[in-house]
């Protein structure tokens, strides 16, 4: 290192001094006094402390502090002093000039100088840009009102603390990592917090739906209000923020609004200086930008197409940068990042790509009683992603296996149980097989946590003759509650019995080990309220089920919670989603309801008009005495319904797992033989039952005399009028296996016929399995059972009837009218009509 005498002066005392020298070392100027900028300097100092003269500009009026610790500062767990990384002494000791509170405003690459807001100009030999990110501010009206802030730096934290000091309500826009940390801190500081999140699940980038749901439930348990699927329309207030209005019209008053919807690299300085910028400032493996004398590091850069928003990659970058600046050549190769939510008491971890996809297998563990959810995604015998909730102890281990790309085929079966189990299991006598792992457990090891059943008790139960899962559940209660130990019990059965295990009842589908009846029972017993909740509590093995379990769960929940359950459209088959029947060419057919098969000129005219107006190629009388209009395009459906509604007609539900038609004959009104008014009765029955969702399609008929012209004895519920009253028939089916009805009973009055009908329908709705029509259901449970519930148990019948009528009070809304009025009408339209001329 050479020094040069700049000038010689005399001090007042007359001593000769040789200061100051001009420091002729290369001058490194750093823009950004944040995590990456300072870390880069530290790395550089560690390699060659004397090589560069260093000046650091910082926009914030502070020394270098740990940004990720702002959350604990907000939460009151730390003070600012405790999160300082490098204090003033560090800058002094290392001869670094810190220019804090004075942002750089321009870079002149030709002159190799930067200028700052206060007008300072500083020359550089090497420039390092480490400007981090700017919070993304959604461009809604009111975004600039005082009291609307982001969560990025110490100033934001001060603003939040000040607002919290006054109490009141806060809205956090954005349910990602940052937003939730802000919400947590503000809650601890005593504010009433509402989180508004655009997506349907929290932290959707890091967590899958199941984990997001658990997180939401836990946060709500802490008193926060979490609104998912909520879109901000505007922030309002007179001179100061007063609240947030959502697109759906909801209003949330707040004296503080924190926007935490994302960040984007702060690249404007670099862009204006003419450096190459893509999403971030583009850099090579040594963090050099398109100008060899300008480097960039941290969140503001883009390396190999990647932009990072976490600190771990910055450390790798800073090492490579310092290597480059000191002529060592180990370049940066990109980073795999993991996310850990550190909001106190809530453990969430995710890493890699957990979205699955081709060739990926999901290993899922749900332990409802402990509130644990784990999902490891394996591809080609290697871990490619993981999501952990509740128990994140093994996060680091999965992350490590992922980074090293280790072959996990040997420990695959035990992988999900974590390192201790998988590795110890593997070393403990080579027990790679879960069965062997169970076999080596001691007799008093607990198998079923809910019921406190030990391995010894389960084995005793099996020895006593239980040779199926169900038998064990009945015998010693193991696996009879939450079911999380089902796998263990099955393995024990296999260990004790070898091949003698009887396969259990058929499961609902491949996503679960539970059968339909178990699922229905548990939904009611545990008061489950949503599909993700059922999947979580009953340990579904897939992230979001399949096309056979989702519609079933949707129905079961709907049936169990009339009026409360929020229907999941995406779990409905297309016909129910579109309220029309899909036909083989992808068009739809539309069947308006004609009560009891009756119609009139106005309705007929409306139908005729629709047929002409929409060019329907065919109209047909259905087997259920309705008119079916064919060949309607998805886009035209809302308009068709509007026209039919205008003539007073509503949806015939001819498409649904629901009450379809009530077929009638003419009965005593016109027929020579008729004994009762079967037409009138049919209309009454249809008025009572229409709109009801069922396990499968459901048809009713009423005939006026035993000649049975309405074919009531091949319907799910049939009434045959006789001189002395009404014969009620159940369980008929004209499908592939024709089945004539069983006689349920005979009743004397029309009202009784209606009451028994309602009770029977409700019994079927509550007890049949999804997609099981009444005929196979009755053959399965026996007609005597049905009689015992409907005919012999007056109080039970009455209870069933009133439950049916209660649920009907919510379901008799015409779905056509809702759609015609605009609800979800976009789902009928293409995303965007785009005309692309063929080239």
């Amino acid at each position, binding site marked *: 290192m050479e020094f040069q005498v700049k000038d010689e002066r005399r001090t007042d005392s007359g001593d000769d001094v040789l200061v100051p020298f001009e420091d002729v070392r290369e001058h490194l100027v750093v823009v950004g006094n944040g995590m990456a900028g300072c870390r880069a300097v530290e790395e550089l100092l560690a390699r060659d402390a004397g090589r560069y003269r260093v000046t650091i500009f910082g926009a914030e009026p502070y020394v270098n502090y740990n940004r990720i610790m702002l959350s604990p500062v907000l939460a009151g767990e730390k003070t600012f002093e405790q999160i300082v990384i490098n204090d003033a002494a560090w800058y002094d000791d290392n001869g670094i000039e810190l220019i804090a509170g004075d942002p750089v405003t321009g870079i002149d690459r030709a002159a190799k100088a930067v200028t700052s807001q206060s007008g300072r100009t500083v020359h550089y030999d090497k420039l390092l840009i480490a400007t981090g990110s700017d919070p993304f501010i959604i461009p809604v009206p009111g975004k600039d009102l005082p009291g609307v802030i982001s969560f990025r730096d110490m100033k934001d934290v001060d603003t939040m603390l000040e607002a919290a000091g006054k109490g009141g309500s806060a809205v956090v826009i954005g349910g990602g990592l940052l937003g939730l940390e802000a919400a947590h801190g503000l809650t601890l500081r005593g504010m009433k917090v509402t989180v508004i999140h655009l997506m349907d699940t929290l932290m959707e980038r890091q967590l899958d739906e199941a984990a997001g749901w658990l997180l939401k439930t836990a946060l709500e348990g802490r008193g926060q209000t979490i609104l998912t699927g909520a879109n901000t329309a505007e922030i309002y207030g007179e001179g100061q923020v007063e609240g947030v209005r959502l697109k759906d019209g909801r209003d949330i008053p707040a004296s503080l609004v924190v926007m935490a919807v994302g960040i984007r690299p702060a690249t404007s300085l670099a862009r204006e200086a003419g450096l190459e910028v893509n999403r971030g400032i583009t850099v090579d493996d040594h963090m050099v930008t398109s100008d060899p004398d300008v480097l960039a590091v941290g969140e503001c850069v883009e390396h190999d197409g990647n932009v990072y928003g976490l600190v771990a990659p910055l450390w790798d970058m800073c090492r490579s940068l310092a290597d480059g600046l000191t002529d060592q050549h180990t370049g940066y190769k990109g980073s795999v990042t993991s996310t850990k939510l550190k909001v106190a008491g809530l453990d969430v971890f995710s890493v890699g790509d957990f*979205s699955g996809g*081709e060739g990926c297998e999901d290993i899922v563990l749900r332990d409802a009683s402990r509130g644990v959810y784990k999902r490891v995604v394996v591809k080609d015998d290697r871990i490619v992603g993981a999501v952990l909730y509740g128990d994140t102890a093994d996060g680091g281990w999965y992350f490590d296996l992922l980074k090293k790309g280790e072959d996990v085929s040997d420990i695959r079966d035990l992988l999900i149980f974590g390192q201790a189990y998988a590795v110890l299991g593997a070393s403990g006598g080579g027990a790679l097989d879960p069965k062997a792992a169970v076999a080596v457990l001691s007799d008093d090891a607990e198998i079923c946590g809910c019921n406190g059943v030990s391995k010894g008790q389960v084995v005793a139960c099996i020895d006593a003759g239980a040779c199926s899962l169900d038998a064990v559940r009945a015998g010693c209660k193991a696996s009879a509650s939450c079911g999380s130990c089902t796998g263990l019990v099955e393995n024990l059965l296999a260990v004790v019995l070898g091949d003698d295990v009887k396969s259990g009842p058929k499961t609902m589908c491949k996503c679960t080990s539970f059968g339909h009846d178990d699922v229905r029972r548990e939904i009611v017993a545990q008061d489950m309220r949503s599909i993700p909740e059922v999947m979580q509590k009953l340990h579904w093995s897939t*992230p979001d089920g399949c096309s056979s379990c*989702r519609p079933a769960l949707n129905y079961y929940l709907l049936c169990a919670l009339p009026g409360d359950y929020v229907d999941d459209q995406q779990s409905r088959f297309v016909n129910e989603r579109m309220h029309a029947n899909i036909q083989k060419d992808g068009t739809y057919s539309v069947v308006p309801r004609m009560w009891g098969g009756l119609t009139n000129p106005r309705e007929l005219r409306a139908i005729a008009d629709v047929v002409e107006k929409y060019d329907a190629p065919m109209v047909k009388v259905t087997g259920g005495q309705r008119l079916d209009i064919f060949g309607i395009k998805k886009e035209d459906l809302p308009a068709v319904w509007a026209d039919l509604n205008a003539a007073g007609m509503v949806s015939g539900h001819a498409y649904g797992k629901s009450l379809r038609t009530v077929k009638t004959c003419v009965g005593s009104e016109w027929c020579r033989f008729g004994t009762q008014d079967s037409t009138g009765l049919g209309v009454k029955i249809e008025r009572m039952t229409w709109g009801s969702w069922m396990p499968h399609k459901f048809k009713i008929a009423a005939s006026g005399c035993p000649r049975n012209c309405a074919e009531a004895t091949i319907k799910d519920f049939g009434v045959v009028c006789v001189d002395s009253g009404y014969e009620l028939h159940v369980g008929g089916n004209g499908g592939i296996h024709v089945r004539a009805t069983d006689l349920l009973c005979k009743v004397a009055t029309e009202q009784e016929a209606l009451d028994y009908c309602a009770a029977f329908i409700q019994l079927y709705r509550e007890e049949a399995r999804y997609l099981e029509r009444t005929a196979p259901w009755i053959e399965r449970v026996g007609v005597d059972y049905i009689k015992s519930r409907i005919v012999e148990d007056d109080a039970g019948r009455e209870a069933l009837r009133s439950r049916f009528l209660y649920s009907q009070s919510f379901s008799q809304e015409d779905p056509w009218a809702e759609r015609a009025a605009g609800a979800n009408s976009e789902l009928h339209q293409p*995303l965007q*009509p785009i005309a692309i001329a063929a080239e």
Partner: protein
Amino acid sequence: MTDWIDIGTLADIPQRGARTVQLSGEKEIAVFRTGDDQLFALVNECPHKKGPLSQGIVHGHSVACPLHNWNIALKTGEAQGNDEGCTPTIAVKEEGGRIWIARPMAMQAAA
């Protein structure tokens, strides 16, 4: 350089659902959004009998065709299980809050 067409935002497509894009060619394109917010685009025709895949139930990264319940992998367009056949896929990406599909592939697929 691939040329991309802006077709809307993520919020336009229901989670575990799809919307269609109408091109001036013969066919429609179905753009799917999965439960974990991934996007996929396929020609809106099942390899079996041309069922409109956009109307199927989306589960995981598959869609069950609404006509005869074949399961089609969204990423590859291939029929799964014992069924055979493949629907053309179109590159799709989310960037700057918008959804984009690859123009040349879309053109080819729609022809």
